[in-house]
């Protein structure tokens, strides 16, 4: 099968070129868990729609994040896709996560690059997604009751100092 595809590709058969997405345009919506109090792991979810100028739909796509390959799910089988992963709260760093999206040709190139230890940046992705994560809320810095106790003790201390000054 692959030999046939390779042969057809060599022969410059137009139908194969129809499978390649030209001038990709992407619309992204992403979601990350913000509250680290209730969840055990942070979920990173990015949903995107991919539109090609040559109207190619239903492409098989793969994502790459920090040298790891992530599968991309098809949502409606046409233009909508989802990429998602989870990370432990301690390991998840805040900031931007850059995800490179590849088609099947790019996927085989990136796999070769990862296997041979080459720089993954040498493979040009089809599109690049940015998922920003502002960090998870892990509770207040200082407990309110602790702060209230500190304030009360300081008020008592001020009063005590003044009282002792008066008495002396």
């Amino acid at each position, binding site marked *: 099968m692959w030999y046939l595809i390779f042969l057809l590709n060599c022969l410059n058969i137009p139908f194969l070129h129809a499978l390649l997405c030209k001038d990709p345009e992407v619309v992204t919506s992403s979601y990350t868990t913000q*509250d680290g109090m209730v969840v055990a792991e942070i979920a990173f979810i990015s949903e995107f729609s991919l539109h090609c100028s040559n109207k190619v739909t239903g492409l098989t796509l793969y994502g790459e994040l920090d040298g790891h390959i992530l*599968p991309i799910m098809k949502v409606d089988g046409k233009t909508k896709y989802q990429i998602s992963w*989870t990370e432990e709260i301690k390991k998840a760093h805040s900031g931007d996560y850059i995800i490179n999206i590849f088609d099947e040709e790019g996927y085989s190139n990136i796999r070769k690059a990862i296997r041979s230890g080459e720089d993954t940046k040498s493979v040009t992705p089809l599109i690049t997604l940015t998922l920003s994560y502002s960090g998870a809320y892990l509770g207040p810095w200082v407990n309110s009751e602790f702060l209230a106790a500190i304030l009360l003790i300081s008020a008592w201390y001020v009063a005590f100092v003044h009282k002792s000054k008066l008495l002396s």
Partner: protein
Amino acid sequence: MWTSKVLLVAVLSYLTYCKCNEEEGSPARLLVSKHILNKYLVQDMDIVIKYTLYNVGGMAAQEVVIMDDSFPADSFITAGGQLSVKIDRIPPGSNVSHTVVVRPTKFGLFNFSSASIQYKASENAEEMQNAISSEPGEGRIINFRDYDKKFSPHVLDWSAFAIMTMPSIIIPFILFWSSKTKYEAIAKQKKEKNIKDS
């Protein structure tokens, strides 16, 4: 002698070939787990659900569809991700994960049941293979108020307490301060007078 040896090698190699062929050629089999990655299940707060699919078969699973109908629309809203997705291919010996975030709109006991999976066990398979994921089981979704009572920093409550206690501290302090400055001024005047007289 030679012929028997050659025959033995031939039989062994045939058996090995058959075994390898059987392993490589066995249809795709997916093991699917559904996990809830939460410490607490709270009303109106995120519940992270992770589906992990592992292909233990010898062939790639094709046209894999993950469908989770276990979250009724009147009790849950999907905050992130999709509960019905498709992946073209899962190669043998590899795993794939999918994550969804839902938010329960009601509280109480809820049975987190399995998701259903459909796939083609081989490239030429005509029929779809049906599978179900593991079941996370029953979980109690806590009322948001109860959770908030226990875990919120209670900033508003404590500020109200501070405002209420402020008069009883500030008023006596102001009275004390005014009389103190008054008596200090008188004492100072007396001192100055004494110095002048002497």
